């Protein structure tokens, strides 16, 4: 009996969120007195999961380098069945959210996504998850034999807890792909909204795409991803990929900086899960101030360049 977690990788290296998923799995395994086992795909550094409490990794090497949900799900299904795993832990990246429902269907599992903490009850297994697009939490019971927990980004954090870790590189018979990849376009070397620790987001208050250097310069200093409100992408000032909110991408970073965004309910719904929110807006009545932790009432065109310069100096000396 064990807890099985999926550690994501890209270009043969574990992704950053693998540490958080490993930490969550190890903590749960500790509570339940079970083994914590991970599955990774083509990860050269799978060993590093040991730093976060994972004692065994099955690193599968006969699967496509490029994420393929159908294939990966069949491999995870194989390990769930062969290990008799009862608790399956996945993250909330686009890929993990693609995989989880497939694995759930393959193993007739119960699945709760967007989970924000360790289960607060084991009998029946009960987790706390965000619902109604972050406007509420639901306590959800999972009562199947196999239960899948999808951990929200940055919801648990990483906990270092080094243990001996055995990596078994191997091959598994798996399903054939359902889909053929024709092309992929991905900005490399730029933090993505899903992966970044910090997101800097701009709204209609920035008046036009020609002013986006304000957002980009600040983001660069903070190693942050850039995002925008819906009207900004609707008007074509920024690409749709940057649209965040209830109908765009969800954001749950450690720090979210909103510049010239009013804080409409649909925007807040999608970004509220972020830990610390900073708002820069020249209207003291902007609703975003009610949801923010820190705020500056001021003109973005004056405030943001100063903030960027001062942060640069701060980063240089720390």
């Amino acid at each position: 009996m064990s807890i099985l977690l999926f550690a994501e990788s890209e270009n043969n290296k574990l992704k950053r969120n693998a540490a958080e998923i490993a930490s969550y799995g190890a903590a749960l395994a500790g509570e339940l007195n079970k083994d914590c086992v991970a599955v990774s795909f083509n990860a050269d550094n799978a060993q590093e999961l040991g730093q976060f409490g994972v004692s065994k990794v099955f690193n599968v090497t006969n699967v496509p380098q490029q994420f393929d949900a159908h294939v990966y799900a069949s491999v995870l299904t194989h390990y769930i069945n062969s290990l008799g795993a009862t608790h399956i832990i996945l993250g909330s990246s686009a890929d993990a959210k693609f995989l989880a429902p497939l694995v759930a269907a393959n193993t007739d599992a119960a699945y709760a996504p967007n989970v924000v903490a360790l289960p607060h009850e084991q009998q029946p297994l009960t987790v706390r998850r965000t619902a109604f697009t972050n406007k509420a939490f639901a306590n959800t019971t999972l009562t199947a034999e196999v239960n899948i927990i999808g951990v929200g980004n940055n919801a648990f954090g990483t906990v270092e807890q080094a243990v001996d870790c055995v990596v078994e590189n191997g091959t598994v018979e798996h399903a054939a792909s359902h889909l053929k990849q024709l092309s992929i376009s991905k900005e490399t070397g730029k933090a993505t909204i899903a992966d970044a620790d910090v997101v800097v987001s701009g709204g209609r208050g920035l008046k036009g795409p020609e002013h986006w250097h304000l957002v980009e310069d600040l983001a660069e200093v903070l190693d942050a991803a850039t995002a925008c409100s819906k009207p900004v992408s609707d008007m074509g000032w920024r690409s749709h990929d940057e649209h965040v909110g209830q109908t765009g991408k969800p954001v749950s970073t450690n720090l979210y900086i909103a510049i010239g965004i009013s804080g409409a309910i649909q925007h807040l719904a999608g970004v509220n899960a972020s830990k610390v929110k900073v708002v820069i807006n020249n209207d003291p009545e902007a609703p975003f101030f009610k949801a923010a932790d820190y705020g500056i009432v001021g003109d973005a065109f004056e405030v943001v360049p100063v903030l960027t310069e001062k942060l640069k100096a701060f980063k240089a000396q720390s």
Partner: protein
Amino acid sequence: MNILVCISHVPDTTSKINFVENDTQFDTNGVQFVINPNDEFGLTRAIWFKEKQGAQVHVIHVGTAPADPTLRKCLAIGADKAFRIDTPAIDGMAVAKELAAFVAENPYDLIIAGRESIDYNGAMVPGMLAALLDIAFVPNCVGLEVDGNNAVAEREIDGGREKLKGSLPMVIGGQKGLVEESDLKIPNMRGIMQARQKPFEVLSPKGSENTTKDVLFEKPAPKAAVKLVPADDIDQLIELLHKEANVI
């Protein structure tokens, strides 16, 4: 081509979220329910296939009678037939099993669902449905072209896009981008009149078991008041973010 569009019926995006019965039930009082925004993009794309490629478009919802006006709206927008499987939607897997059983008996070439429902936020039903039917699935779908038995779909990934090719039948989880917002179909008078004549079937469920259940809801704790920093004292903000919030 026969297309099935899976419709989820959700509180309007501006709804205030409250709970009743000791916080075990969503308070529907005064809440306006709508077609899940992601499903609206899918439905509009389906109607496009109907207009351009002669597709038949059916819509389906697993749920109870209060969703009927939402399904009628889909008919008014241009769907040809509506189905409702008459059982409360409690668990994504149970919903997917009901849908899979329906599709096993009534095959479709293309099944369009939404990326996620904005109430449950599971992003689970379409993937589960595809896996139960053992057919291809494209989530976060922002583009879809069908030519005969072949489909080319584009999906949003973290930081970019991926273009995929597969053969029908296929399930997609659609979202904005599948069609533009300005192209979303809204019912006109003629559509609303026609919808009354269109077939609408209520089906009995297969009784799929629920293995997840929301037993208690909580609203986030009220937020402490924002700390305002004067616009001419940016150093203070940096200090707070560094020392107090620990995020830089």
